[in-house]
């Protein structure tokens, strides 16, 4: 049985409410942090734990917190990024819906470290029912003295506010989130200055993912060093994976980053294998914007080694033969799925969600979508494939925020690994409307040259 730190109590009925959460040992980390530790020593624990941002980029959290500027007389803020809009990712929803107090406990500890007296949860508008859950939890915590003025007699004040977004994917980007939180149009800001220097209302701000902030609670409970012992190398602790697609058991799973991808897909403890007895064709291991991998490169790296579910192993081989851990949105595609249609769906999503601020992303995403639609509906040309490749390379790296990259990567990876499927679509314009290219050679063993 794998180690569980976040979801270990999730099965307990009514854990959503304060009384049950408290009875099960909730808020002890907060008590420990505020009464026996200083902000510096907590920061030290978080640094020792090796916790990395769970929102997608995987930036070390302790390091991020230590960057926050501390000018005299300027308030600082912590913002919890609950704008979980990445297709395939739904782990934060699960956390907030079933364990809201875990998030609040983590938020208060983190606010204490950063010196934030007003902390915000920016939640995506589509999670319409969750703000109520969070607000109820906040009022429960406040009534029991874990929030508000002079928490536990330490003199530390903290208020948590829930702010709802209005349904834009781009507002999950931290600077766009800040703009939106300020009540403006959610356009990403140009960095530098980074939010750690000038964030919400030009005040030093830290923006962290829900899971990252919740993970602070077990770190305080068991200590940073103990937390770092779970997992492997720089991928420490546990990670929530939201598994979906053609698998027997879709859902949110907590993994300790030591299991292999094969085990994660086929083990009954996790995804339970591919649904309907089909075979695995491809998988996006970390949410829609990370590169898609064919079955053979997913289970084994290009060198023939087993691929594990952690930051390093999933990105082994770079973008040429690897992918990314991303936000943990594990999307599995079986042999009946069409990669062209799938890529078109993603391109349509990114076209719709581009903020329109900078030209490569605004114009390029729409262009890619139109070309992919043509190929998908049998109107494509062979030159379109190279054109797509050229467009994505012109977008990637030339935009203000990572949405341009996120739109370019899935297209690039699909062409890189599934070029023959695209060519088949072009060559068989009528067949491709009714039939599928199938699994072809995508699950074949990779030939690894023996190096003497």
């Amino acid at each position, binding site marked *: 049985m794998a180690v569980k730190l976040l979801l270990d109590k999730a099965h307990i009925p009514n854990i959503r409410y304060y009384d049950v959460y408290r009875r099960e040992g909730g808020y002890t980390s907060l008590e420990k942090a505020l009464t026996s530790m200083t902000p510096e020593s907590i920061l030290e624990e978080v640094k020792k734990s090796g916790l990395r941002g769970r929102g997608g980029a995987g930036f070390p959290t302790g390091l991020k917190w230590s960057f926050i500027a501390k000018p005299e007389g300027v308030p600082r803020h912590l913002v919890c990024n609950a704008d979980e809009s990445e297709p395939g990712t739904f782990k934060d929803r699960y956390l907030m819906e079933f364990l809201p107090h875990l998030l609040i406990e983590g938020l208060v500890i983190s606010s204490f470290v950063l010196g934030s007296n007003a902390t915000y949860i920016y939640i995506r508008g589509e999670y319409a029912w969750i703000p109520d859950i969070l607000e109820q939890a906040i009022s429960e915590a406040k009534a029991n003295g874990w929030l508000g003025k002079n928490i536990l007699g330490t003199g530390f004040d903290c208020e948590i506010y829930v702010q709802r977004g209005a349904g834009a994917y781009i507002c999950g980007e931290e600077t766009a989130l800040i703009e939106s939180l300020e009540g403006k149009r959610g356009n990403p800001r140009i960095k530098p200055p980074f939010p750690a220097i000038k964030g919400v209302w030009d005040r030093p701000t830290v923006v962290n993912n829900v899971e990252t902030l919740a993970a602070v609670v077990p770190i305080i409970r068991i200590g940073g060093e103990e937390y770092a012992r779970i997992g492997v190398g720089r991928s420490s602790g546990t990670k929530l994976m939201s598994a979906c697609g053609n698998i027997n058991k879709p859902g949110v799973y907590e993994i300790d980053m030591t299991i292999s991808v094969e085990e994660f897909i086929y083990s009954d403890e996790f995804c339970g294998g591919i649904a309907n007895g089909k075979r695995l064709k491809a998988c996006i291991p970390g949410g829609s914007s990370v590169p898609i991998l064919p079955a053979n490169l997913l289970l084994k790296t290009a060198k023939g080694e087993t691929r594990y579910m952690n930051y390093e192993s999933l990105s082994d081989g770079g973008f040429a033969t690897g992918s990314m851990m991303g936000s943990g949105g594990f999307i599995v595609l079986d042999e009946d799925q069409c990669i062209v249609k799938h890529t078109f769906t993603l391109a349509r999503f990114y076209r719709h969600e581009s*903020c329109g601020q900078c030209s490569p992303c605004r114009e390029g995403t729409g262009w890619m979508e139109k070309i992919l639609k043509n190929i998908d509906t049998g109107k494509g040309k062979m030159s379109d494939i190279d054109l797509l490749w050229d467009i994505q390379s012109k977008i990637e790296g030339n935009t203000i925020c990572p949405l341009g990259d996120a739109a370019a990567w899935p297209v690039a990876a699909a062409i890189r690994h599934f070029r023959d499927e695209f060519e088949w679509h072009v060559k068989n314009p009528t067949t491709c409307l009714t039939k599928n290219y199938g699994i072809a050679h995508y699950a074949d063993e990779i030939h690894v040259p023996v190096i003497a």
Partner: protein
Amino acid sequence: MSEQQFFKVIIDNVSIDVPAGTTILEAARKIGGDVAPPAMCFYSKLKGSGGKCRTCLVEVSKGSEKDPRPMPKLVASCRTTVMDGMEVKNITSSKVTDARAGVVEFLLLNHPLDCPICDQAGECHLQDLSYEHGKAGTRYEFQRRTFKKHNLGPYIQLHMTRCILCYRCVYTADQLTNSRSHGVLDRGDHAEIATFIENNLENDFIGNVIDVCPVGALTDKTFRFKNRVWFLKPLDAHRDCPKCTGKVTLWNRGDEVFRVTARKDEWGEVEDWICNECRFDKKKTSDWVIEGPRNISRHSVISQGHYVNTITSQETFEAVNEGRQPKLLFDIHSKSDVNKTGVSLSLIDGPAVSTDFTS
């Protein structure tokens, strides 16, 4: 105050010392010429502008003296400040020219290319950019996007299809007027400049959005379809205006004032903002004190026909004809239907049509 710190930067192998806090683009403009990256959205007089169009991308091959690592990605030169010892490659980097050609292609993707009927043609930054950095053909095979038309009132004409969403007009309204009534609605490739709900732009200084617009998306309704800018002669002029400095450029044909704009510097940026009254209502030469012809870079199409520093050949008719003047056979205006002396093109209401001359 401590002494102003100066940083040494090398842009395209040209070295220059600039004060700390200067952006790469401003440093490059100090060197001038081809070293200065093009800018479609950056406007030095508008705070917060820039970073959006991505045409000014440059490669930083050396971060600074202290940290000589190159920057991993191309950076927007208009929003990146210089560091001491920074080395920047603009036109000397193939990565930059390649990326810039890509950006130009993206900008032109949905741009209608209706230059022959666009009032901005001849002074359009996107035209210049495409000539200098773009490719001849397009690979786009789809319908260009169109928008529902919005009316912005009697002075400003909006052509949303031409807009490249540089946000300059938004910043102008924010920073020159006390209430902004237009903005960017919607997002992505269907984002548009509009008022919400249908509204006229009426502020005294809102006319300046016409001058800051790099393309023909916002044009002067009082000048609409009246003339091509390169047929007009720009003159510096001023008047005593209670609202603004009154320093303008008149665009004349003969004695007729066709339009009034603010004076623009060599980067196409306004020198002094002017008010709506000067811009739209003072269309008589007698309203203005004319200072003299405005110097326009002779590379601009506006300079065509305005020969500066050229030697005109000597008129020899009188000398060979024993002092007699050439004889006019008839006055062309009495025979021709067009160019009637009684018609002042700039004063007629709306665009000029053939009946204006014949009736």
